[in-house]
């Protein structure tokens, strides 16, 4: 049994529920048979991947859905062996080079080149080129991006790249100018409600009224994936009972912990609290919550509770420490420094 998110994922461009204009554009591109390199960007849960898979299906037909996973071995210049999982069909490959951390350049140089240098084997294939999807392109290192630039130009005959990313800010300009930018905005809350209604009807979820769905949508941060997962969770929790407006939407544990940190910060401003908060931070970090998410969530929670005149310095401090967090090596220093700074602000 698969999750609803996957089960009800639209299988073709004609069936997606919103952003019809993007689907039309993709269909037009697929019809020309000359696909440029694409850079698809938008927030997570907006449906980037769904649309790209729809595009592939338009390009190659249904056989593109027969996917298998392979693991590819890489040898670094220092003779270390690394492995990377690659999802592939006869016509496309999907990689997440950022899994390799600093060695992502190798993926571009070795795997992509290997793919690029071989031609499509299947003579009946609709297109002469293969498509390579690169996930999380914004976390590619500069080196990898520079290597990509060269590969992109050299092998246009055999491969087309589709880069998926949350933001174009970290993509170097030469790549941006070589790709066609496609923006996939997050669905509006109404869009989400519509989709939820559809899925609920298909799954025979017993709904009291659509208010519940609206509530889920407003809690979803405009992330369709999150909304669908929430709906499924509610349904599983409720069992045979009706899912009603009053069913509480479960908050993830980590958000609750951050809420607690925020409360403690505001209520008592002593070194002892700082110490207590430290252990909470460590707990969050050991559960793999990204430090910048922690800091961001904490800031958002602090904004409403601090006095109005402190909000500007608070945000400025948050931005500063988040920046340092990215540059520095040890997260806890910056998280704690931020807390201490907030305490000082509150004391003044």
């Amino acid at each position, binding site marked *: 049994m698969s999750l609803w998110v996957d089960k009800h994922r639209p299988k073709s461009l004609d069936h997606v529920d919103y952003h019809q204009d993007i689907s039309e554009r993709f269909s037009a591109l697929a019809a020309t048979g000359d696909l440029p390199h694409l850079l698809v960007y938008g927030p997570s849960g907006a449906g980037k991947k769904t649309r790209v898979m729809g595009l592939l299906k338009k390009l190659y037909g249904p056989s593109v859905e027969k996917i298998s996973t392979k693991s590819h071995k890489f040898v670094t210049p220092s003779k270390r062996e690394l492995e990377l999982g690659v999802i592939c069909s006869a016509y496309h490959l999907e990689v997440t080079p950022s899994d390799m951390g600093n060695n992502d350049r190798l993926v571009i140089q070795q795997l992509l080149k290997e793919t690029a240098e071989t031609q499509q084997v299947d003579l009946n294939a609709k297109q002469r080129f293969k498509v390579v999807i690169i996930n999380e392109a914004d976390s590619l290192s500069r080196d990898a991006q520079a290597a990509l630039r060269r590969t992109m130009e050299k092998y246009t005959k055999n491969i087309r790249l589709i880069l998926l990313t949350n933001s174009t800010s970290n993509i170097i300009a030469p790549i941006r100018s070589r790709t066609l930018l496609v923006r996939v905005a997050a669905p509006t809350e109404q869009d989400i409600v519509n989709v939820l209604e559809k899925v609920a009807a298909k799954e025979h979820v017993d709904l009291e009224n659509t208010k519940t769905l609206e509530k889920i949508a407003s809690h979803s941060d405009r992330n369709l994936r999150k909304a669908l997962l929430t709906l499924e969770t509610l349904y599983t929790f409720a069992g045979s009972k009706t899912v009603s407006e009053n069913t509480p939407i479960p908050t993830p544990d980590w958000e609750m912990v951050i809420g607690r940190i925020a409360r403690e910060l505001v209520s008592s401003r002593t070194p002892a609290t700082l110490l207590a908060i430290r252990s909470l931070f460590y707990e969050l970090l050991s559960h793999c919550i990204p430090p910048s998410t922690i800091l961001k969530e904490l800031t958002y929670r602090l904004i409403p509770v601090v006095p109005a005149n402190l909000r500007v310095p608070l*945000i400025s401090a948050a931005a500063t420490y988040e*920046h340092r967090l990215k540059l520095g090596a040890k997260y806890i220093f910056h998280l704690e420094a931020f807390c201490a700074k907030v305490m000082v602000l509150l004391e003044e």
Partner: protein
Amino acid sequence: MQSFFAKSQQAQKADGKKTSKNKAPPPWVEKYRPKSLDDVSSQDHAVTVLKRTLGSANLPHMLFYGPPGTGKTSTVLALAKELYGPELMKDRVLELNASDERGIAIVRDSIKNFAAQKVVAPKDHIAEKYPCPPFKIIILDEADSMTTDAQSALRRTMETYSAQTRFCLICNYVTRIIDPLASRCSKFRFRLLDGNDALARLRHVSDAEQLSVEDGVLEKILEVANGDLRRAITILQSCSRLSGESSAAQNDEDGDATMAETRPITIADVNETAGVIPTETLKAIIKACKDSKGPIGDTVPDILVAVKELTYSGWSSAQITSQMHDLIITDVLIEGKEKSKIAELLSVTDKRLADGADESLAMLNLIVGIADVLGAAK
């Protein structure tokens, strides 16, 4: 057996047909590169000087510098073509750009070897048509990304082989070229393209491709491209692909290709392709910052909502920063003092984004900061 061969031949034929059909047309940037020096628009100074050298068959080492998309590479390629003609160009010109490995090893081996080769007299039928001066040209594109070591290794090479080789260095930032190299070259500065010249060029491309564009679209493209003609042409091509223009025209003969709907290119297409945020959205934010009443802290939650909306729409923060800058600097209603404060905020934000900081926090900080500055001014 025979039938098997026949089949494979057939397959090959089909294959051949398919490749020719699917052969990607060249990017317009390459297709419409100026063919001769006369075609190069807007760079009168460089063109006049270079034309004079055409007659005298003597060429100094050259250093072209200027912002991207102003025609540096095009000029030197056009020059080479006029000097040697397309046939001889292959032997006489070596072009290296940043995508080629250009460490010190390459300078020592490849470049030196090419530079050291003696020039062979051209065949008569070529010599009749083109000046064919007795030297080769090495073009080092994007020379500012060469390491200092590689540049130093080039110094002596340039002098030793000057009898048969001329160098042409192309770069965006002349300051990144080490002095000893710069002093060996005669420098040409390429200006940003003049609005009218660029527009004429863009119109030429769009007419040649038989595009139907709405009024003001070409102007908008130029505005977005900031004087970078290459970017402008790329945007135009992407737009035409999206609106299904050129493709429909190409596949017509086959008849089997589904006719993509054709429609004229609109300004919205340009904005979407270039990833430009509609000015109205940003203006609304700036206006809200200006109009905010009472202490700034109270408006922070509203700003938070606006920033989240921006992030949800998927706009790139770097783009927001740069467009915000354009809007604020040209806004006559903001005092100089405030502008300089905001400029500082923008620069800090830009640095943070470049370092990979979280986008929504950086944006929140920027917009709250702007609101704070503007609010304090009242």
